């Protein structure tokens, strides 16, 4: 009797979360998968079970190019945010000694997040433009004679905006794991004659891996799912998968958008599965 009761209580405790996940995560995904097999006319969609959407998707060379571009953006952004994020977190965690100072500096990192995503992104446009501040400054310094065209509406500007927007997502989890590293381990390394670099490579990085991994998952999923940054920063000249989907939706092609979304979801899940092979996050949480 006692045991049975505990069983029921356990189920009841898990129920709210299960219901929320079922209603707001599983059900929509199932719906998207179903719709991806439907057909569309110009102004409506009709239930069907056909592979047209996938056929068109996999049959078009543009799809492969766009998925390639998406992975490229994700990879470059990841590498840059990791380098910057790790450095910032390292500085905060090991070089700044007082806790008050650490918290203060950490809050400074979050200041850009007090404005909206879109504003932070768009404010780059007048800066990078042909007659923008960056070009004017470089010309007045005599570094260049002609304005640099590739500063804006290019892969450069897209990745710049991504790095700017998402580096904090790398800083936070890495900083968090670094703070939990037992300082006596660093002392032990030093006592055993390790150089600063050896300590970094053999002690800090292995212990920070879960934080790196969580940051990686944040950045990769954010970049792969983004469409608005690519649209604005490339002046619609570049595309990633998110833009394919948003174009389809704008043109009322919901089934085709759903099919693309399903393929994107699978891609992201595969990427994350691969990442999780490297580090067991749950062990560290």
């Amino acid at each position, binding site marked *: 009797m006692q045991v049975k009761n505990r069983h029921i209580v356990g189920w009841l405790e898990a129920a709210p979360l299960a219901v929320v996940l079922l209603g707001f995560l599983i059900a929509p995904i199932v719906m998207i998968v179903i719709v991806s097999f439907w057909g569309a006319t110009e102004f409506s969609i009709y239930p069907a079970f056909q592979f047209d959407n996938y056929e068109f998707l996999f049959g078009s060379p543009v799809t492969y190019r766009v998925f390639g571009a998406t992975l490229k953006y994700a990879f470059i952004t990841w590498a840059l945010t990791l380098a910057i994020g790790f450095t910032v977190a390292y500085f905060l965690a090991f070089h700044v000694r007082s806790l008050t100072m650490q918290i203060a500096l950490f809050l400074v990192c979050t200041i850009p997040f007090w404005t909206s995503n879109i504003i932070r992104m768009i404010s780059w446009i007048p800066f990078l*433009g042909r*007659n*923008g501040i960056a070009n004017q400054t470089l010309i007045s310094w005599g570094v260049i004679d002609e304005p640099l065209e590739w500063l804006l509406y290019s892969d450069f500007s897209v990745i710049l905006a991504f790095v700017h927007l998402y580096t904090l997502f790398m800083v936070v989890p890495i900083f968090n794991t670094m703070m939990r590293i037992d300082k006596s381990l660093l002392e032990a390394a030093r006592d055993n004659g390790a150089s600063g670099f050896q300590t970094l490579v053999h002690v800090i990085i292995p212990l920070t891996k879960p934080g790196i991994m969580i940051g990686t998952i944040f950045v990769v999923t954010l970049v792969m799912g983004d469409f608005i940054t690519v649209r604005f920063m490339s002046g*619609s*000249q570049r595309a990633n998968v998110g833009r394919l989907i948003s*174009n389809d939706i704008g043109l009322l092609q919901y089934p085709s958008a759903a099919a693309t979304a399903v393929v994107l979801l699978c891609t992201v899940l595969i990427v994350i599965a691969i990442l999780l092979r490297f580090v067991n996050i749950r062990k560290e949480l």
Partner: protein
Amino acid sequence: MAKPKVGYTRRSLLKTGGAALAASALPSPMLWAQDTKDIVLRQFGTGVSNLNDVANKVKEDLGFTLEMTALDSDSVTQRAATQPDSFDIADIEYWICKKVWPTGNLQAMDTSKIANYDKIVGIFRNGKLTPESEIAQGTAPHTVGFVDGPGGTSFADNETGWMTLIPTIYNADTLGIRPDLIGRPIESWTELLNPEFKGKASILDISSIGIMDMAMVCEAMGEIQYGDKGNMTREEIDKTMAIFTEAKRNGQFRAFWKTFDESVNLMASGEVVIQSMWSPAITAVKSRGIPCVYQPLKEGYRSWGGGIGLSSSLSGMELDAAYEYINWYLSGWVGGYLMRQGYYSAVPETSKNFMSENEWGYWFEGKEATDVITSPTGDTLAQAGETRDGGSFYDRMGAVACWNAVMDENQYMVRKWNEFIAA
């Protein structure tokens, strides 16, 4: 009487209210006026004519409330097609009407209730601006302007007395240029793909309109002879897209734009010196003191027209209010307001009463301005002695080469367009 916000509640309230009124032998005008005051009509459409000034004037002149929502063309189409209960009045373009009408979300309007119907410009009635005019390619407004009866689902080819949209606003579009940065005359659509403007050209990312600009360019280049630019074959679509994809890969375009503001910023900042543009965007660039010309081109204009359609769920007093609104719309004040921005009104002669002689001469007749021309919001647009780009109403609307359109192969075109944007 409280003003409920939810449409259904409001409607049912109004219906019962209307029934009660009809039942009483002598409905008091006081009561009627009070009810009118409580009517809220929800209008949505593209930014061009969804103006708060119009809503304010409606409140002042007619007493009821008009709620405006401005969206881009794709979103407008989407909403008209998929969310019929979210609006009472749809302010849409004729090509959108062609797409949306078959969904049954709009109801036809009885032209006998439209006071100025006879004065509406010929373009919207029989397709002819003047009796000698030739009808341009594409979705010409009169081809989707009429249906057979109140419940008609297919378009009629003559004036049946049942209109799908009441025309409100239209214009002839062409390329906008920065004369100061180009420094030589521009005469043809081909210039959009001229390598001279590599990295300094732009086109709009709205498929139904963009494809027409592309077609104007390809035809002007002599690369493609279209049977009908407004209704291309798959082969014609492929060829058109191939030419533009190649240009895109070669870096011809600086950016594509989707909203009015983007086009203004691209032009004003000098990122782009030649691009597809809309008339008020030119005005907006000019009002910043930057030279910008709406360049008439020898191949003619790409034209568009918009109108207001009524949601099929409108009935009773709200429907009457909507008719009242339409009649007011055509009675001149709005027309004058729009014409002073560079658009044309469907009933120009009523608009004339709301414009000064100088304004009428400049905007409609293509004459030299005798005094400073200002926009309805007070920005200076032209000095005395200047004339409008392209000349008079008949010069401009008479040189229309095609109308914005949706084609039979629209879905194919849309997919190809998506590929072009992603290419």
